[in-house]
């Protein structure tokens, strides 16, 4: 088998895989939390930063270890890691909201700036790379939990600013919002 055949076969397989992903990725079922809105409701509490900070603080953990309660300290450590992961999930929801707005604005624009859209796509890929990097570090127990606190301030502020900007679009934004629930991905074949 010569190299050109191998190249053609690889391209064919790759294209087939991408096509299958495009065809079926939009039909996958959303997690329960997203479907019934429980995740959205949970993420409303993203603004309760002081409580989250307190929950993530090291002081209790250090105190318990010093007083000779390692089992309790471990349990609390696991609980806090769970809180951190939930919080990270909320940040993801916020990021996705921003991204949906960006796509909606782009879809409703008469002229797109390609560089702008490419940059949006790049940011999206970067976010997911970093998100999973942090996620796996948290799951494996390598990360510092208190670091998360500072992120929430920024995301909440961004969301408020964006929602203000979008509300100025009035009916147009509302029309765009109607498009989103129908087809996030656009390719739910047969759906």
């Amino acid at each position, binding site marked *: *088998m010569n190299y*050109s*055949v*191998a190249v*053609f*076969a690889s*391209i*064919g*397989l790759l*294209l*087939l895989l*991408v*096509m299958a992903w*495009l*065809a079926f990725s*939009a039909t996958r079922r959303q997690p329960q939390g997203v479907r019934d809105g429980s995740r959205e409701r949970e993420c409303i509490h993203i603004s309760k930063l002081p409580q989250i900070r307190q929950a*993530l*603080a090291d002081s209790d953990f250090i105190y318990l270890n010093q007083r000779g309660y390692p089992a309790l300290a471990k349990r609390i450590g696991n609980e806090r890691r769970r809180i951190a992961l939930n919080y990270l999930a909320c*940040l993801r929801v916020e990021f996705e909201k*921003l*991204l*949906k707005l*960006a796509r909606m*604005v*782009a*879809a*409703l*624009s*008469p*002229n*797109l700036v*390609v560089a*702008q859209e490419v*940059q*949006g*796509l790049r*940011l999206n890929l*970067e*976010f997911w790379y*970093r998100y999973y990097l*942090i996620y796996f570090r948290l799951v494996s127990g390598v*990360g*510092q939990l208190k*670091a998360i606190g*500072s*992120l929430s301030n920024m995301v909440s502020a*961004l969301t408020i*600013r*964006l929602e203000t900007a*979008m509300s100025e*679009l009035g009916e*147009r934004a509302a*029309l*765009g919002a109607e498009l989103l629930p129908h*087809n996030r*991905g*656009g*390719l*739910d*074949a047969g759906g």
Partner: protein
Amino acid sequence: MPPIVNYLWAGTFLLQLVVGTLIVIRGYFRRLPFFSAYTALNLCQAVSLYAMYHYYGDASTQSYIVAWVSEAITLAARLWATVELLRLVLMSYRGIWGMTWRLLAFTCPMVLALVGIFSRSDAQVFVMQVDSGYHIVFAVALILCLGLLHYYPIRVEPVYKVLLLGFCWYSCARILANAALHGFSYAQYLHYWSVWQILSMSPYLLVLILWASALSQPAPATQQQPTLLTASEYRDIAPEITAQLQAINRRLMNFWKIQGPKQ
């Protein structure tokens, strides 16, 4: 021709008739004239090729020329049918449509150049490689378009999705069939032509089944034109959102370096 090839011919011919009939009955020919023409051309190709193979044999020069000339015509028709479908889906979204064209104008020549580089300069397989090259460029372009439809919140009617995916699937299957046949040197094999026919017609049969089931549904109502933003609104909002997405990314990047508040 072996019996299985005859069955495949009969199957594809019948299904093409069914697809053609559904296009007429469901009124798709008004909305998709190029796709209707493509279906009609395919039917004509099937009839003419069957007659050629019957009278001149499937290994004759006459059959070979008619087969590839008719294939070139249907490939051109397929291209137009695809552009028509994409235009129908994207015509309400002028910005995305414009960007799609620019993206294709940039990508297709590059893919074509790559195909040229990796092709063999063997005259015996030249036509087959041109065919593969066409299908690669076609599939890449179509997947890019499908990717854009996936990325942006654009509503695509299920019937149009199935038609586009059918084109894409068929091109991918043809690339693989051509590569597999060359890879295993089927050109030396006595039943090479029959094997190629089977590998080409089987995926098309599947496409026709999918199309027939999609076209059996009533034609979708004409989409309501969404009210577009003004160019200045996009210029104002889009960079703002991008800047904010950038800010989140920067923060994520520094995730482990951020110090928590002093207790």
